[in-house]
């Protein structure tokens, strides 16, 4: 028999057990077909309505805060984001092309990385830590400005090896449960996992307000959460493998409209 789920175990632990059971019993069932679908398509009507609500979507709390941070001088005499860039919407064309290859550093960079770089190089401030309220707020505000734009499939030729590594990461089995990202989000996308439905793992809504977290989280937080759910050691925020995975997921979901701040379970 399976061990009784201890009532004080975390939701993640229980999900993990369930994931293993479902995949073990699911056998050969494949529900994913056709064009890529946003995680929005896997939500119930109430959550779809909450995401679409221009007042009550909880992610808008971070949008408000991001707007204030964008306009405020980070320190006396230090120019605000707005004094160089104008409105956050001026960067809207950039957002769907991230992460992208930076030829100067020969590395990938994502939105969080660009904001942090601007904070340290242009504003001469300590960059906001990953998953801090300030960085989440700025990321959310910028991505919200690009709402509706499709995720781009433009990938620099130099980034081809990184893209290939990202795909390899996606398909590689990991953790004690030995599951790859593709096992759940490709093969079993749409299948039931307890009371939940497995989405395709698209990244067009990030940062997302996730009910499980009761707060907003970045793409890398979700990667870390998923890695932990299959009982793998997660990488740090902003780590190279996650940037490569993020690049692959942008390519995989190319054409999906950005819907930040999305609401997810």
């Amino acid at each position, binding site marked *: 028999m399976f061990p009784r789920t201890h009532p004080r175990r975390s939701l993640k632990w229980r999900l993990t057990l369930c994931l293993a059971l479902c995949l073990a019993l699911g056998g050969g069932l494949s529900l994913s077909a056709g064009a890529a679908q946003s995680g929005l398509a896997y939500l119930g009507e109430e959550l779809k309505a909450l995401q679409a609500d221009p*007042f009550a979507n*909880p992610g808008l*709390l971070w949008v408000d*805060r991001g707007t204030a941070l964008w306009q405020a001088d980070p320190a006396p005499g230090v120019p605000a984001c707005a004094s160089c860039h104008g409105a956050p919407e001026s960067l809207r064309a950039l957002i769907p092309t991230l992460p992208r290859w930076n030829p100067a550093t020969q590395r990938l960079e994502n939105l969080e990385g660009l904001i942090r770089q601007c904070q340290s190089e242009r504003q001469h401030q300590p960059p906001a830590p990953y998953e801090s309220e300030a960085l989440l707020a700025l990321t959310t505000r910028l991505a919200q400005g690009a709402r509706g734009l499709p995720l781009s499939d433009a990938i620099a030729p130099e980034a081809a090896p990184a893209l290939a590594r990202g795909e390899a990461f996606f398909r590689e089995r990991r953790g004690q449960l030995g599951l790859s990202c593709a096992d759940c989000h490709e093969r079993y996308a749409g299948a039931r996992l307890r009371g939940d439905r497995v989405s395709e793992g698209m990244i067009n809504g990030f940062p997302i307000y996730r009910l499980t977290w009761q*707060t907003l989280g970045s793409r890398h937080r979700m990667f870390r959460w998923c890695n932990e759910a299959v009982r793998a050691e997660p990488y740090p925020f902003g780590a190279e493998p996650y940037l490569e995975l993020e690049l692959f997921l942008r390519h995989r979901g190319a054409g999906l409209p950005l819907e930040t701040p999305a609401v997810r379970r």
Partner: protein
Amino acid sequence: MGTLSLPVRLALPEEAQAGRVVSLRLLLQHPMETGYRIGEDGARIPRHLLTALRVSYGDRVIADLTLRPAIAANPYFALSFIADQTGPITLEVEDDRGRKLTETRMLTVVP
């Protein structure tokens, strides 16, 4: 105008017809931490909860809520009332760390 020390979204019409139902919507950013959860470092996450929400219309209290730990983080409240007089709508929210939100908006009632 009040002091907004809690991040908040508040929706309330500025003008309403007499006798019509007006709705007030409020979204608060708050962790609503119960004090029972264990953080990544193995330590207990300290309790941090909203405790009270009060809405007054003119000199009447139209909603007086005691907020409990079972309420989710970043709670959303909506209430409706009948607009019958021009007057201030005052909102007071308190949490258990002495943070307070007091916000006043004028509601103008037209015949």
